[in-house]
């Protein structure tokens, strides 16, 4: 264990192709395909002889690409890298996550990380820090309403922004269930901030007394559980599918039991393949945990002789173009009002700078 414990840390410049190449060359024989765009920060660990001992990175609060050269596996290098990155993450966040392959779970558990869930055979997620999934479940218990007899539904929504379609789905669930928990994606990676989205939804579901709004936290479609959801480009691949499975597994294993959720509502998806894959994974996984899935046909509206599906992306498109008329056709009155309070301008600027998918 004490072998070569005198390490030096270098912070490579991820915008330099030399540095990125160096990391890539180190990782590639170890079975990692390093994607510099998927990390915010990396370190390279050297020994005194300037041999590369290992590397590690993180994006947001998620540790990635931690690897140590086989020659140095007996040393404390792995723990050293993990400590360094965890400490960096924890300066900004309440907890750190690790996204890794299931075969590496034991290495991180050995450090003190807690395993949350896996999507075999590709992905496992672990966490460490001041907060954890138990704390989130305590939050859920604190907002839980007693509902012994009736059916309890869950909806997970990003609502970027809250449209007539969203409202329709919530209303339908509220009508068909005794109680509806409406989880709002908390990750601030969308055009509209979490606070704005939360306020728009709150205004739009005010009339439904059996709907309880819930913060999605770190566990409902978050960067830690479903990073590909927030990618700029859609990705229809095995990784996305496994991430979706991971997210749903956490829902079924931890969240649904606390709130006695027995049904989940989603809208049919016709635009986004990531969401479509997510819905497919729901169909496949929910029955294993005795949770029913209701796929509600997306709301459409009549526009100039033709039917058109309601979608938040169309709203953002119209907003970017300044086509207020078109935009407002898709929105409930509550959202329109909320947007008029200066929010519209703020968001429009943001939309012009970047094209966000959700």
């Amino acid at each position, binding site marked *: 264990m004490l072998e070569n414990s005198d390490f030096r840390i270098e912070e490579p410049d991820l915008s330099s192709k030399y540095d990125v190449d160096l990391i890539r060359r180190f990782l590639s024989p170890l079975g990692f395909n390093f994607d510099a765009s998927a990390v915010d920060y990396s370190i390279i660990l050297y020994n005194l*002889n300037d041999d590369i001992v290992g590397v590690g990175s993180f994006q947001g609060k998620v540790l990635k690409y931690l690897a140590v050269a086989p020659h140095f596996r007996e040393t*404390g290098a792995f723990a050293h890298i993990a400590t360094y990155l965890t400490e960096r993450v924890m300066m900004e966040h309440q907890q750190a996550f690790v996204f890794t392959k299931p075969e590496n779970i034991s290495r991180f558990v050995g450090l003190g990380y807690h395993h949350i869930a896996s999507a075999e055979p590709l992905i496992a997620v672990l966490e460490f820090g001041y907060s954890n999934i138990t704390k989130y479940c305590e939050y859920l218990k604190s907002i839980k309403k007693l509902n012994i007899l009736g059916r309890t539904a869950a909806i997970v929504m990003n609502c970027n922004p809250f449209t007539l379609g969203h409202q329709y789905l919530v209303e339908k669930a509220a009508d068909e269930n005794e109680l509806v928990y409406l989880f709002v994606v908390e990750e601030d990676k969308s055009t509209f901030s979490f606070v704005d989205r939360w306020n728009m939804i709150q205004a739009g579901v005010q009339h439904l007394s059996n709907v309880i709004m819930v913060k999605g936290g770190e566990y409902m479609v978050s960067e830690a559980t479903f990073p590909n959801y927030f990618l700029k480009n859609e990705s229809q691949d095995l990784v996305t599918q496994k991430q979706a499975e991971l997210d749903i597994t956490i829902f079924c294993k931890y969240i649904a039991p606390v709130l006695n959720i027995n049904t989940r509502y989603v809208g049919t998806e016709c635009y986004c393949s990531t969401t479509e894959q997510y819905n497919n994974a729901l169909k496949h996984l929910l029955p294993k945990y005795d949770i029913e899935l209701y796929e509600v046909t997306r709301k459409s509206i009549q526009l100039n002789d033709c039917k058109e599906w309601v979608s938040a992306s169309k709203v953002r498109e119209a907003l970017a173009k300044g086509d207020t008329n078109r935009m407002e056709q898709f929105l409930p009155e509550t959202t329109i009002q909320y947007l008029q309070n200066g929010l519209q301008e703020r968001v429009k600027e943001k939309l012009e700078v970047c094209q966000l998918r959700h």
Partner: protein
Amino acid sequence: MLYIPGNNPAMLQQGSVYGADGVLLDLEDAVALNQKDAARILVSHMLQYVSYEGCEVTVRVNHIDTPFGEEDLKQIVPLQPDAIRLPKVETIDEISRIIQLVEDIENAHELPHDKMKIHVMIETALGVQNVYDIANYSSRIDAISIGGQDLAADMQLVKTNDGIGIDYARKQIVMAAKACKIDVFDTVYVDVENEEGLREEAEYIKKLGFTGKAIINPRQIEIVNEVFTPTEKEIRKAAKIVKAFERNKKEGIGVFAVDGKMVDAPVVQRALRVLEMADIDVADI
């Protein structure tokens, strides 16, 4: 002299058991900038808890002009390790400032000024130029050493395995140490895997006159010890000289001859040194 990173509890708690003559608990280069506080606190606690019996304990503090140096001294000096090691000393002015600070701290804690020794590291071109004056500045300074990595950087050269670039500095530093009659230690050999390279370098610096060599890994202890352990022939000769000296001392004779060669004080000193390195008690010979 085994280097131990000051923020590594596993090594700190075991440092004394590897058979090195001394351990050097390092707060300087082996500690990341954002862990300087952690290392300083850890080393303070370890010094009070762990018994480094039979092993000389030195703490290397940060340079006085860094944001860490003064705090290091404030925390460590009151604990009075066997020695404190000052890195990158370049001028008399510097060494006088540091010794003043050390003695102020000692005064504040009512500690004597002659217990804790001071080791000085020469790691810059300027330091090499001033080495004799630095080494000669205070009687508390009982050893100097060369820091190869930093010196090479300061000289803007790439340190090679043959050490050609720092060769002059090595010789200069040895000369200064000998002139001041203090110990002189060589820099570390960083390629832990290369045992032959280490052995060659250790043999070379022994020939230059170094007293010993710093190491970064316990595995290097054995090789350096082997190189520096006197041969049987050396031991035999040294024993003979020391015995003759003891005999003559009783009769009040200062200068005498062994095997036809003059023996005076420096020769006796050297012989005693050989026995010490071979771990032989004078009473046993």
